[in-house]
Structures are given as C-alpha cells and as structure tokens.
C-alpha cells in the first residue's frame, strides 16, 4: 500500500510544538548554554567547555547527594508499592464505601507540596507538634532537627502519607477492571487467596503498577519541596538531595555554570533510570 504524505498535518501539531519549544526545549538549551560557560554577572560569558561537568562528577558532594536520592527512592518504592497494593486489595468494590474510600484516598493528593511540608514540619515539632510532643511524652527520643535518622523517618513518613494514595488509586483502577468471571473461575479451580492474587490480580495490575513505579520513582527522585520545608536539607547534609543541593548551588551560591551542568546530569540520570525501569518492566510482555 502506498502512503500519501500530507504535510498539512504539520500545521495541526504546530501549536503543541511551539508550546513545548517555549516550555521545555528553549529553557533546556539555556541550561546547556550556561553549563559550558562561566559568568561573573554583567551578562559576560567565558567559554568553560566540560570543566563544570568534570568538576561536578568528581565532587563527593554530588555523589553523596545522588546516593541519598537513590536510597530515598528505593525506600519509597519498597514501602509505597506494596502498601498501595495492599490497601487497594482491601478497598470495597461495591456500595457506599467506594466513594468514601476514593475521597479519603484522594485527599492527600489534593494538598500542595509545600503545605504537606508545613503540616509535617509542625506535626513533628517536639514543643508543639502532635507527633513530636506525643513521642516525647512517651519517652521516645525524637527530634528531626538534630537527629539525621529522625529526619529521614519524618521525610519518608511524609512522602508515604502524601503519595501512597496514588499507588492505591492506580491499583484500584486495575482491580475493578477484572471481570467477575475470573474470580468465579478461581473458586471453581479451588485457587487459594494467594493464587488469586498471584495469577489473576497481579497480572491484571501489571500495567498500572508499571505506571505507578515510574511515577513514584521519578517523583521521589526529584523530591525537593517537602524536605526543603521540613528539614532544609539538614541536619548537616543528611537530607540534602540533589534538587536541594542544586538550588543551593544556583540560588544560594549563584554558581550558574556548575548548577547548569548538574541539572543536565540530573536530568540524564532520571531519563536513563526511567528508560531502564520501563524496558525491564515491559520486557516480560514481549516473550511469548
């Protein structure tokens, strides 16, 4: 069959192209531009080549932050994905419970990041916070401002509270799309509760789980607002993630060149990791 090329179609995608150009491509190119030059203000630029990149890649500060990011994302995925699946499995499928649960689940998602940060910042305070003060009263030594472990626990708890709902909602959508006949057949076949999960529910949730893992990985890897509001990256550097470090470098120290180089490295890491996740998780589809 011969294809006819219709160039008019380009006009239809032109508005989107322009929008993407202004919102993504041009800013990205600006960053690329900064990353290979040095400036001392006054709009004067000097060619720096790959200096900034090698400086970033050889700095322990960068690798430490990257390590924290990976560790954080790993913990987030290990908690939120199983927990999300577990909650989704136990949500009602019929009746008045459905809308009630859905609204409850959607609530954390509707709260802006900085508000979530502020809520937990107050919640965890030892002097007035419900959580911090209660723990203190119970004799548990908890202080996210001074103790790095406590700071981590707080940030992780906050993220789990904020984002597990997303996993729940995605999994729930996958679960309700399974026809009743599958459950009936499983009963006839004498399948155990675990077998129903393993051979019916999990395979049917696979696609939404892929999306959930991708979204949660990318989001947790880019986390900024909540730890910035709660801990400000501290105590010390213990919760300084790449994004926080980046902002410190760009805004705090006004090192535009290194910051731009770091953004590009950061961006490439996320791109690469997402691609790896996607390829690994869809590869089982291909074999037959």
């Amino acid at each position, binding site marked *: 069959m011969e294809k006819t090329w219709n160039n008019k179609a380009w006009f239809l995608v032109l508005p989107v192209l322009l929008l993407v150009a202004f919102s993504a491509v041009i800013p990205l190119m600006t960053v690329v531009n900064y990353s290979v030059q040095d400036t001392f203000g006054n709009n004067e630029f000097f060619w720096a080549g790959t200096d900034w990149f090698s400086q970033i890649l050889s700095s322990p500060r960068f690798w430490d932050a990257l390590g924290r990011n990976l560790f954080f994302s790993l913990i987030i995925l290990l908690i939120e994905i199983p927990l999300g699946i577990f909650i989704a499995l136990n949500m009602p499928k019929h009746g008045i419970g459905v809308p009630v649960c859905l609204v409850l689940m959607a609530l954390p998602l509707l709260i802006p990041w900085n508000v979530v940060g502020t809520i937990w910042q107050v919640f965890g305070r030892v002097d007035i916070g419900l959580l911090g003060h209660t723990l203190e009263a119970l004799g548990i030594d908890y202080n996210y401002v001074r103790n790095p472990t406590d700071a981590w626990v707080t940030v992780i708890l906050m993220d789990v509270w904020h984002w597990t709902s997303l996993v729940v909602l995605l999994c729930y959508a996958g679960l309700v799309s399974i026809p009743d006949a599958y459950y009936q*057949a499983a009963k*006839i076949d*004498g399948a155990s509760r675990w*077998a129903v999960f393993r*051979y019916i529910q999990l*395979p049917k949730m696979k696609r939404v789980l892929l999306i959930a893992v991708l979204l949660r990985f990318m989001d947790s890897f880019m986390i900024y607002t909540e730890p910035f509001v709660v801990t400000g990256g501290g105590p010390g550097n213990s919760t300084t993630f790449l994004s926080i470090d980046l902002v410190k470098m760009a805004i705090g120290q006004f090192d535009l060149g290194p910051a731009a180089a770091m953004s590009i490295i950061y961006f490439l890491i996320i791109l690469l990791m997402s691609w790896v996740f996607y390829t690994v998780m869809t590869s089982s589809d291909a074999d037959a």
Partner: protein
Amino acid sequence: MARITLDHIRHAYGPNPVSDHDYALREVDHEWEDGGAYALLGPSGCGKTTLLNIISGLLHPSHGRILFDGKDVTDLSTEARNIAQVFQFPVIYDTMTVYDNLAFPLRNRGVPEPEIDRRVRDMLEIIDLSDWANRKAQRLTADQKQKISLGRGLVRNDVNAILFDEPLTVIDPHMKWVLRSQLKRLHKKFGFTMVYVTHDQTEALTFADKVVVMYEGEIVQIGTPAELFERPRHTFVGYFIGSPGMNVLPARLDGARAVVGNETLALDHAPVVAPGDKIEIGIRPEFIHLGREGMPVRINRVEDIGRHRIVRAEFEGQPIAIVSPENEDIPAEARITFDPGAVNIYANSWRVGAKV
C-alpha cells in the same frame, strides 16, 4: 458424578423480594439424573445463569435446597461441591503456560504430579493444543483461550457435575461442531452429569438428552427434543423451539371441537378447561398441509430456504407460518388442513389435553 436435586429453589438478587417479579428464579423443583446431559435453554434474562450459579455454589439461593445424591450441599462452598464450570468468555491465567493452566485446578487439589501430567497431556490432545503446551497462554486467540477454559473444566474427570455457561459463544462455527462432538464423546466416556446453558436451540437439541426450557425464571418444560417439538407444554416452548416456531392462534372450545374465527377444527379429544381461561391452539408449521382442500388462507410471502419453503400466510386474520415441501406447487386459491393429532390446546398458555 451425582444426581442433582433442586428442592423448591427461589432466588432474588434484591434484599426484600415481595412479588414474583422480584425473583430472578421463581420456583425450580426438579431432580436431574446422575450422568445426564442437560441443556438449559431460554432467552436472555430467563434465569439460566442464575440457576447454574446456584448449582455450582457461586450463588446462595434465597429459598430452597440443593442436594447432590441426596446430600444437602446448599451451604457448601463451590470448592467443597467439587464442580467444574466453564464460562461464556474465556478465563485463562495469563502468566501461566497452557500446560500450567490445565494443571492449575489439579495442583490446587493436591493431585500427585505424575497423575497431573498424564491427565493434562490427555486433555491437551483432546483440545488439540499439544504443540502449545509450553507457550504462555496470554497471546493465544479467543478460540484457543476458550479451549483452555474447557480443558480446565474437563481435566477434572472426577467432578460431581460439569456446568457450561454458553461456552461456545466465542468459538467460530466450524470449531463449535468439533468441540461439541468432543464434549459428547467425553460425556459418554466419563459419565459426568453435564449441564449446558445456551440460547441456541440447535446447540441444545443436538447436544443434550434432556432439554430444560426456561422462561421468565421458571422451568416450563423438561423433555427430549422430540417431546419439546411435538408436545410443547407451554406456548413459549412451542414458539422458542423450531424454526419457524409453532403457530399459536386464539380459539374457542366447543366440546371436541376448536373454533378459530369462522373455522371449526375437529379434535381427537375433548379438552377440559375452566371457564374464563384464555384458549389458544398451537400447530407446528410442519404439520399444516397446503393444497386445494381445507380452510382458505391468504398467502403473503414465500421464503425459499433450500430443503423446503416457508409460506407466510393469513388465516382468519391471524398470521400463520406453513412449511411446504420444495417440489409441491402452491395453488392460487390456497387452502390448508391441519394434522389432527398435531393440534395442541393451551389454556392460559399451558397445554391441556389427554396426551402428556
């Protein structure tokens, strides 16, 4: 293998059934023989699937009891009833191989692995999927998937009963014949009690020893295909079985005679009916002779369907279908006679008469 007793079963999906209309199953009280092949036939929404799910234990009836070989199983789970059921749309376990799909119900019941292997290989032979045994079930065609579903039911040959819920709907016509005859063969070989839900009368009539016709939540007749054809107990059976269905004409009774419009038919017996009953006569198109003698009809249309013709005519103001052999010519001034033994009398839609 078991005799299935349905003891005054009623079922409503709503919580507080008041009138008969709230019941998906009005009242079913029958005994089905051990090793019988039953077809449940009826239009959509007549309660076939409800009855099937009650037998398999997926549904608990609102009233009544189910007994297998005289033992009450009403409160037993599906698993404890040892039933196999095949659904209308294929249910397969995507992530398993074809072999594992068939082995799944056996493994869940702790059948020893060599026995599983023997039975699964046999079944793969029967459903013609031996070459696919180690493939993932996910990418197969709908036909193949449904064959796996059938196989998963049939691989358990020690079950009390196998229930089929319109299993061949998604199968292409040629394969339908093949699978249906294989099912019949398996039924003869293993002798399980088989219940087969369908809305396709050909499927029901060719498949089953006994056809159970359901209508509006009730079983209106259980009989052999011949009984359903010759003596439908209910006008619905007459209309539903046969192609075209039985002609049902409003009539009046006068002793051993039935009066339709201005015409009078002599009957071979005098039916007993209560005054005020709605009386109809039923006559199959196959038992009406078209010729130059008898009662006048006006012919509207002739459909030639190959082996014979279907003549659509008007008789005493009522539409009537007549089956006329291919080689007989249809006179211009057509007249009809009825086979005297083939006229059924219905009072309020139920058959009355000497012969049962």
